[in-house]
């Protein structure tokens, strides 16, 4: 895999300056735009990216003469930068319009009801939460709450709110807005899409105003993800929405036809104009509360234009044609296409490695009686862990990574991708293909390979099944074809049935009329809490046997217990141990045959500064308040 240019450049800065602490990963994109660029050190300030330049820790890393020289050069650079010697000041970064191409139209501006990607991309530039998960570090950081303390041994939180914060319409923000927001979300009659996130052990959390800048939350019990519960709950303006809430009209508020003046948020941007089918413009929120390390008010950009262009292919072609500044989540094929012209077109391409998405094969393990008779006859094979492990061993994941994703994916042993780095059980070895071992397992399970090269069970029945796959997902269709050929080597006859996505989901989750399925899911957050619905046997997305009244097997019961325990345990280390055990059981029982996780691939024009994409949503936009546009050569200020 090639190292992106910007990374090479950053490494060279690290060596030259000797300032960066050794364990600090420099902020890509914030520092340079071309390899060997003399402007590379003229980095714009970002809230975090500049911190290392002043870090005295970094000096201690260079005890030699050469190190002292590096230090001197580094200090000189730092001085030049901080004194504005390079001519780059926060205020000078301000201005410009960033163009972002969306694949669909937003459906609402109301953060309580935004569920689609397009709405999220827009809404989350207009709003802010109390505690935010930094998409880069995957850890929490203060947002509207500048600090917090745990109460009752982790069963509650006291949040200290920032003072002198104003909504984008100039009205002040205080604890009443926080209480109003959580009351509205927790009111079942409002039907907020985020209400389920605010239930701990099935009970709604409670919120109480202590004073105008302090609020207390009672979670009603221990909650593993702790303060992560506050991430992505947009704080709403009580002064604008309270009357609508009291009259039961809250769900109808802030639709696409709403006038910009009727909306307000605490995010870096506010709505300026929306023309359906043409585009949407967000403008700088002059009251935004966040500042960079030099005290310059963010955001730097004056405007963001969201332009809806349809599918990924159109997006890529338009991007190559000079339209747009950022591309979110492109496929490996598109990435290869962009790579060819990256230098000529002044593009920064970033392969961020495995993301939160995992693709997997699973079998119908629903309890007897819930699946049709034709499927039930084959469930004896599917229920045998040795059979599932044999299938897993026979699959050539490395070839899938190479042929389907051009090497831009990671083979998986369990569902936890390397992108969810804090929670991956590194003791579980990576998957290795071994047809011989697969055959041994099948033999041990009572299967026999006949003279006709067909695998037969104890009763002499030929082992054959059908794999459902989403007909609109070309990569999965190719993966299914590869699995089919791999299984042939074991004597298993697998058929591939492409189905439209909705029909496929209906078959898997409702009618349960399927044998095997190739599917993909993604972590909603870099925390196992977001996976409860998948791993609890009662979960609606427990795809191999959803919504069970009681666990169908001992190992499912064990996973249920461990998942519930980790949700009720405080502290990362203790939770990690529990989640590691879940992954061990998964590796042993193979309820899903984890295949691979596609890399998160993004692109930007080199004029986009502070480009620091992350593997979690919204990939390139999560730090929109810090993005800026570098003037093209010859542009007048």
């Amino acid at each position: 895999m090639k190292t992106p240019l910007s990374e090479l450049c950053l490494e060279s800065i690290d060596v030259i300056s000797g300032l960066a602490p050794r364990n600090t990963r420099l902020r890509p994109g914030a520092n340079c735009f071309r390899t060997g660029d003399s402007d590379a050190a003229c980095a714009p300030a970002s809230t975090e990216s500049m911190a290392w330049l002043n870090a005295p820790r970094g000096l201690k890393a260079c005890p030699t003469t050469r190190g002292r020289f590096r230090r001197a050069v580094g200090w000189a650079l730092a001085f030049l930068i901080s004194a504005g010697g390079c001519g780059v000041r926060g205020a000078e970064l301000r201005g410009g319009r960033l163009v972002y191409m969306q694949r669909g139209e937003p459906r609402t501006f109301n953060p309580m009801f935004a569920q689609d990607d397009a709405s999220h991309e827009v809404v989350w530039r207009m709003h802010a939460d109390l505690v935010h998960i930094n998409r880069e570090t995957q850890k929490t950081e203060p947002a509207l709450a500048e600090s917090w303390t745990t109460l009752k041994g982790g069963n509650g939180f006291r949040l200290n709110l920032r003072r002198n914060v104003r909504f984008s319409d100039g009205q002040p923000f205080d604890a009443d807005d926080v209480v109003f927001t959580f009351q509205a979300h927790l009111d079942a009659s409002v039907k907020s899409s985020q209400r389920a996130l605010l239930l701990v052990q099935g009970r709604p959390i409670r919120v109480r105003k202590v004073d105008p800048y302090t609020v207390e939350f009672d979670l009603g019990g221990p909650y593993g993800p702790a303060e992560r519960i506050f991430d992505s709950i947009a704080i709403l303006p009580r002064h604008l929405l309270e009357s609508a809430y009291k009259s039961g009209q809250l769900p109808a508020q802030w639709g696409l036809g709403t006038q910009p003046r009727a909306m307000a948020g605490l995010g870096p941007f506010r709505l300026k104009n929306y023309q359906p089918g043409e585009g949407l413009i967000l403008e700088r929120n002059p009251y935004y509360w966040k500042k960079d390390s030099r005290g310059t008010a963010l955001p730097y950009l004056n405007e963001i234009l969201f332009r809806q262009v349809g599918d990924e292919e159109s997006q890529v072609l338009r991007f190559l044609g000079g339209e747009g500044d950022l591309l979110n989540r492109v496929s490996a094929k598109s990435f290869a296409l962009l790579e060819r012209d990256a230098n000529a077109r002044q593009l920064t391409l970033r392969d961020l490695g495995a993301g939160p998405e995992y693709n997997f094969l699973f079998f119908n393990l629903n309890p007897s009686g819930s699946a049709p008779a034709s499927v039930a006859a084959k469930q004896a094979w599917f229920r045998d862990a040795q059979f599932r492990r044999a299938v897993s061993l026979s699959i050539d994941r490395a070839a899938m990574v190479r042929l389907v994703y051009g090497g831009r994916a990671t083979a998986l042993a369990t569902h936890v991708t390397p992108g969810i780095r804090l929670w991956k059980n590194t003791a579980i070895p990576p998957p290795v293909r071994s047809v011989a071992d697969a055959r041994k397992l099948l033999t041990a399970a009572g299967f026999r390979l006949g003279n006709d090269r067909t695998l037969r069970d104890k009763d002499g029945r030929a082992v054959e099944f059908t794999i459902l796959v989403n007909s609109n997902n070309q990569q999965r269709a190719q993966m299914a074809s590869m699995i089919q050929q791999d299984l042939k080597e074991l004597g298993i006859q697998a058929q591939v049935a492409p189905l439209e996505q909705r029909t496929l989901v209906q078959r898997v989750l409702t009618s349960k009329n399927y044998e095997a399925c190739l599917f993909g899911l993604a972590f909603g957050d870099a925390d196992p809490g977001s996976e409860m619905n998948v791993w609890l046997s009662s979960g609606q997305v427990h795809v191999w046997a959803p919504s069970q009244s009681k666990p169908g097997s001992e190992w499912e019961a064990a996973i249920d217990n461990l998942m519930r325990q980790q949700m009720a345990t405080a502290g990362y280390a203790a939770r990690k141990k529990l989640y590691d055990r879940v992954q061990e059981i998964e590796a042993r029982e193979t309820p899903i045959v984890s295949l691979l996780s596609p890399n998160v691939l993004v692109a930007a024009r080199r004029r986009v500064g502070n480009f620091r994409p992350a593997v979690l949503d919204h990939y390139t936009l999560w730090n929109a308040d810090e993005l800026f546009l570098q003037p093209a050569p010859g542009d007048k200020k």
Partner: protein
Amino acid sequence: MKWRLRTILPAAYLGVLVLAMALAPVLAVHSPEEQNRDCPCAAPSSHFILGTDELGRDVWSRLLYGGRISLGAGFVAASLSVGIGLLAGAAAGLSRGIFRRGVLALAELFLSVPWLYLLLAIRAFLPLTLSPAQVLFLLSAVIGAAGWARPGRLIAQKAGEVREREYVEVAESLGAGRWHLMRRHLMPELLPLAVTQFLLLLPGYVLAEVTLTFFGLGVGEPAASWGNLLAPLRHPAAASCLQLASPLPLLASLVLACELLSGDGRGND
């Protein structure tokens, strides 16, 4: 019909095409589903006549086997459409009353049905254990059955004209039954029209199968079909694997050959 060059050439071309598809097991060097994972998107060579696709499958073999599916679907669907159209049209042409109006109204109804959505629904309800060939047959049967209305209306109109001719009225007045009228007087007049309709419908139905498969609604991977071969070309990056476009000249020449043949037929009407 005179046997002119513009008839002989397209007819011979269609014959060769059908023969090549029929002899696919002999002409194909590799299995169409065999993946040579070490040589994806390989250029044409002595080993792979037309190169390989993204999974390393031989494009020449997939072209031949895929032609069987795409052409086969076209033949089945066009035969069904014209067959139903001929029977319904001739019967409607022979009768003057409510039956004729009923058949024509039914044809109008069929023309107004959104077939793409119906196909989607049918695909969803088909048993999953069907082989690609069975799925193909069912889909082409639906396409064919749905497409009878257009030839049916034309044939009914022609049959109505023939029915009004004097020799037919004389035969009827002499006591000829409907079956006799149809067999002796209508069919000889209607068959050239039916053949022309078949030739007009055939490329359309082949393209329908290719289009459905191209968008993932027809015969699924790994079965070879011209639609499956073309599907990766949806992405601009597939320009580096141009051998995947090999069905395009065959499709274009098929449309041209059928057009020339049907034009010849129309000229003789």
